[in-house]
């Protein structure tokens, strides 16, 4: 299964290479937790959205999903 990953701000440091937006092939049934472990991303301190929505870390992906990660932000 293919998913898209986009890393912004300080989360870019977890990119596997030079590119911070890439496609990843994952096994069906893989969860967000598995992806975080794969890229050694810590448990806290950032926002993760799948197709613009918050999800549970144990949720699994669907083909073509976009996972976005960016640092916690607030203000206005």
């Amino acid at each position, binding site marked *: 299964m293919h998913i898209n990953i986009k890393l912004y701000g*300080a989360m870019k440091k977890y990119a596997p290479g030079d590119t911070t937006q890439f496609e990843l092939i994952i096994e069906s049934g893989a969860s967000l937790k598995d992806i975080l472990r794969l890229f050694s991303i810590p448990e806290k301190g950032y926002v993760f959205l799948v197709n613009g929505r918050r999800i549970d870390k144990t949720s699994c992906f669907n083909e073509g999903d976009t996972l976005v990660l960016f*640092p916690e932000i*607030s*203000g*206005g």
Partner: protein
Amino acid sequence: MYGWMGKILRVDLTTGACIECALDPSVAKDYIGGRGLGIHLLNQEMDPNGDAFSPENPMIMATGPLTGTGAPTGARYMVMTKSPLTGAVTCSNSGGMFPTEFKRTGFDAIMFKGASKSPVYLWIDQGKAELRPADHLWGKDTHQTTDLLLTETHSKAKVACIGPAGEKQVLFASIMNDKHRAAGRSGVGAVMGSKNLKAVVVRGKGRIPLADSDRFKAFNKKILDTFKDDTRDTPLGLTVNGTAGVVTATQNFGVLPTKNWQQGTFDGWEKIDGGQLTKRFLKKNSACYGCPIGCGRLTKVDDPRFAGEGEGPEYETVYAMGSNCMIDDLAAITKANYICNELGMDTITMGATIACAMELVERGYLPEDQVGRSLNWGDAEALVELTRMTGNREGFGDQLAEGSYRLADRYGHPELAPVSKKQEFPGYEPRGSQAMGLAYATSPIGGSHMRGDPAYFELFSVPKPMDPHQWEGKAKVTKAFQDLSAIIDSAGLCIFFAVRNLAAKDLGVAPTGILEYLNAATGADYTLEELMQAGERIINAERLFLTKAGFTRKDDSLPDRLTQTPAPTGPAKGCVCHLDNMLDDYYQVRGWTQNGVPRNALLDQLGLL
């Protein structure tokens, strides 16, 4: 008194009299200070049906009991008056160094009434107040005015002033303090201009007296130590990229207002994000008095087309002048922000009004010969030129100076104005952030994020996340955040620190930390219930002003494009804002009638009958 200075200065600009009055301790406790004290005085002094530009409209500047005490972000003051933009009450708030210096003069608040025949400024030197001629300052921008006043008063004084926009009564003119900080919204600067009051200059002395200094210091240490621990490894986004860093969040949630609120995503967002601001223009961070965050941005633009130096832009400016106008040129946005600060105007209404004009032109409702130039989406040079023209009311700028509602109405299409109560929205699209729509519609000052900011729980997960697309259950939480904001604004604190660090970590957001600070500072011995009731009292006192001025449910509204037209792009695609459903719940939770009027039983309970 402790925490409070115990005195209010009443300035009659018609006669020139400056009279000191005592602050009633029971009023201080019931209304806290700042915004609460302001609405109490306004309700006493102003006929809500009076004209905002009438000399009878008081303009109140008020600090809170925590302003200048050293409590983190205790740096703020409020300006309260009847707004010429909305016809409702307004409370516009600002930080920097001016509010602390103001309080050190010995006054909690200043109430201006009347109007001077010729330009004047108020000079308070360590408790002694006098009005001085300001003819030589009229026409000068806020930076020139500040520099001249520091030369002729005292180099360590602090200045709040208006620029040409306030003098010319641009309906969204701001009052600028410390050059770069703005009491920006709803035209408080225009009211000041209508009174021929150019500036307030203050020089204080000594410390703010505290009821229990040891208790205050111990709690302060605990709060600051916790903040340091929490941010040691991961600094706050506000510290790293300023408020402009919020672009990343709003774009990815699909709530970044774009193309005059037609959609919630902008293709050019990465060019206007806070990360770009840091990389391209940031010279250094700046912080208000006593603030451990430092979200202010001292910036410099070298691009010869838009060269300048100053502070900002903030997130709200970036949305209003950037994505909302389809402009991805951060240099131009920053330059237009500098012009707003120098001429003394609100960047949100300025940007939103230009975006509205762009749509009026595109749809053929506004002829370009009226504008005097081309005005297409994404035109960065038009943004800068029209901003300057508006501050000086030159040419088409004279029409823009009335705000988006009056502009769109003039050309027959008021539905294109992104407003509630004729005030433009900040940068969170309610189709993908439902409670934000409710907050805009029910804010006493019209479109605002500062009178209860649901973006905290809908987008930032503070203190806990709520699904931004769901409308159910939002009324109760929005009320809780509005009441908390009333307490924060009245105490003299900043929402950026207080919501995260001084309130309970659940969606009831009880002001537990603020309670301890207030009791240590004032000795007023608030219970948590009394403090929360004070927040509710302030909201209802404001609502009473609106009710008497004729505002009802029909005015707690959003434009049809947010409630009827499904979002066309992004994660909120297909959503509309369910305002009517939320309003039904909200009025019930508030104890108001379904027409939005506070019931007598509630007013009696709050001591407002």
